[in-house]
């Protein structure tokens, strides 16, 4: 018998959740991503997929600080963690990536193009940040009180539309949090080879206050995210969160050009290991549960579609 309730979900977390709950979610995301890479390696899935190994804690922390009922999320190409932290739907996502009709978008969207309730993503860098600004404008006009969280990578600061979006958001005082995952790399290009000045200064130059945090420390990230999101909501103006956490896996599948030494250093600072350390022995049982959940999800996703 399986160790979960059959819903094939990870329990999502909020500000009141325990460290163990956050760990369960973050570790679940990690397990999901690893499973995907395995499935790629065996040729069971094709196309392209960007895993967020190393960045799970940021996804969990920021999403926990959102109000999941009303807030909106616009994610990017590397969005599995954002998606699972938002709704926990392991099977819906896996089925989508498997191209099944019972995937969250019927297999049409695939890894990079997800939609569920108030969650959206697009695989074209930058453009979705502009769409997120429109979502924030819509919610402001509806007086829903919703904050919109726009996820973007550090490399995406190369795209001009990001600045058009920040300018409009700041000018019109829209309730949007630009959540920047500063993993120090874009595909194969280190940030130093693609970004002049700094991301924080760029945001501030648009009059957008910045919270810069380590994406390794759940408590720090959660506190900063909560602060930024609350301020966004109460002041009705944009804020930015910059979370530093290395991408530990490949860009897509097996295409990592960084050298072993560099990766070793990065892995030595794995945020998940830090979080695991904080919850002690409980982690083992959690991870066993997760392993069963993944197996079951994979088994079901491998069955013929009804």
């Amino acid at each position, binding site marked *: 018998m399986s160790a979960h309730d059959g819903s094939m979900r990870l329990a999502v977390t909020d500000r009141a959740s325990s460290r163990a709950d956050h760990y369960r979610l973050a570790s679940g995301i990690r397990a999901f991503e690893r499973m995907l890479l395995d499935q790629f390696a065996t040729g069971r899935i094709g196309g392209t997929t960007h895993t967020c190994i190393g960045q799970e804690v940021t996804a969990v922390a920021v999403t926990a600080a959102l109000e999941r009922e009303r807030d909106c999320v616009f994610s990017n190409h590397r969005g599995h963690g954002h998606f699972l932290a938002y709704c926990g739907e392991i099977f819906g996502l896996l089925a989508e990536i498997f191209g099944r009709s019972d995937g*969250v978008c019927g297999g049409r969207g695939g890894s990079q193009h997800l939609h569920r309730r108030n969650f959206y993503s697009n695989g074209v860098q930058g*453009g979705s940040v*502009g*769409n997120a600004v429109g*979502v924030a404008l819509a919610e402001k006009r509806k007086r829903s009180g919703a904050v919109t969280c726009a996820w973007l990578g550090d490399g995406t600061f190369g795209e001009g539309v990001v600045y058009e979006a920040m300018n409009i958001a700041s000018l019109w005082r829209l309730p949007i949090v630009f959540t920047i995952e500063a993993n120090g790399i874009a595909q194969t290009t280190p940030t130093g080879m693609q970004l002049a000045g700094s991301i924080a200064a760029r945001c501030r130059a648009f009059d957008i206050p910045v919270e810069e945090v380590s994406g390794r420390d759940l408590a720090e990230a959660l506190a900063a995210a909560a602060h930024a999101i609350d301020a966004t909501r109460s002041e009705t103006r944009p804020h930015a969160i910059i979370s530093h956490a290395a991408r530990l896996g490949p860009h897509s599948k097996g295409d990592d050009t960084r050298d072993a030494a560099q990766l070793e250093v990065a892995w030595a600072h794995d945020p998940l290991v830090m979080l695991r350390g904080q919850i002690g022995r409980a982690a083992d049982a959690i991870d066993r549960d997760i392993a069963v959940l993944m197996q079951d999800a994979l088994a079901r996703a491998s069955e013929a579609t009804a």
Partner: protein
Amino acid sequence: MTVLASLNSGLRAALAADGHVIVIGEDVLDPYGGAFKVTRGLATAFPDRVLTTPISEAGIVATATGLALRGFRPVVEIMFGDFLFLAGDQIVNHAAKYRAMFNEQVRVPLVIRAPSGGRRGYGPTHSQSLEKHFLGVPGLWVVAPHSLGDPGALLRQAIFDVDDPVLFIENKIGYGEALLREAPPYEIVTLADHAAPFPTIWLRPPGPCDGLLACYGGSVRFALDAAAVLREREQLNLGLVVVTQLSPTPASHLEAILRNGAPAAVVAIEEAPAEAGWGAEIIASIEQIRDTHRLGAIAYRRVGANAAVIPSARTLEDAVLPRTEDIVAAVLDCF
């Protein structure tokens, strides 16, 4: 009533009818009312729903797309159609994609208005008709008003009756044209159906029809003139097919017209260079219909601008853009 006045009152009516309609664009506020005055008076009447923006074509369309995803019905003005490519990725990879790629779970009811066309001496980057580059995009409608229809009603149709992004191509010179309630000697036949809801106006000449002029937007006037010249000077009896829905191709309308009798000649007219343009699509579509219904051979011609950058000097511009004489010559060349 001019095309401009009709568009302006159509937009006003749309704002009045539904609080979800939001007008967004550069310099759209009063007293200016937009570069071509289509939004004049609207910001005064609906101060909360007419938003002037930074100079950010991509950002504006992106924002409007987000609004549309969340239940609004935004109407964007791109100041000059020449700048559409700046919003091209937003149109093609965002607005037009979401509905299908999110498996029909969302809608993007967005209208993007783009004043287009030349003949005003505005030069190479402010005179183009770039709509041909946005035809055949799955999920995107492209429509063009003209004096034979009701431009304001068309705009309301684009805003309310379609849940997908609509590129709405206005012609700068066309703004000043008076609406035509009748068009003697032609009988006016309006074609519209579920697959092609934006009406094609078919001008049927009295008596047997020697050929058809297919046209849209800013070329309608020239087609009418050419047909008059050919009627008087050459006793040629031409019908006009004034298309409003540029994309998807209104094949059902074309079919209805052709089943009424295959013309000996079809001349497709557009203001852009004809290569890979709207006229090519019309010819290819008609050929398919002709073949399906085993109709007789048709002589086709395309009339468009020279394959050239549009010069600023008016005399040079006139030499590049298609004129009535070019249509007349193309028709005569068929016979």
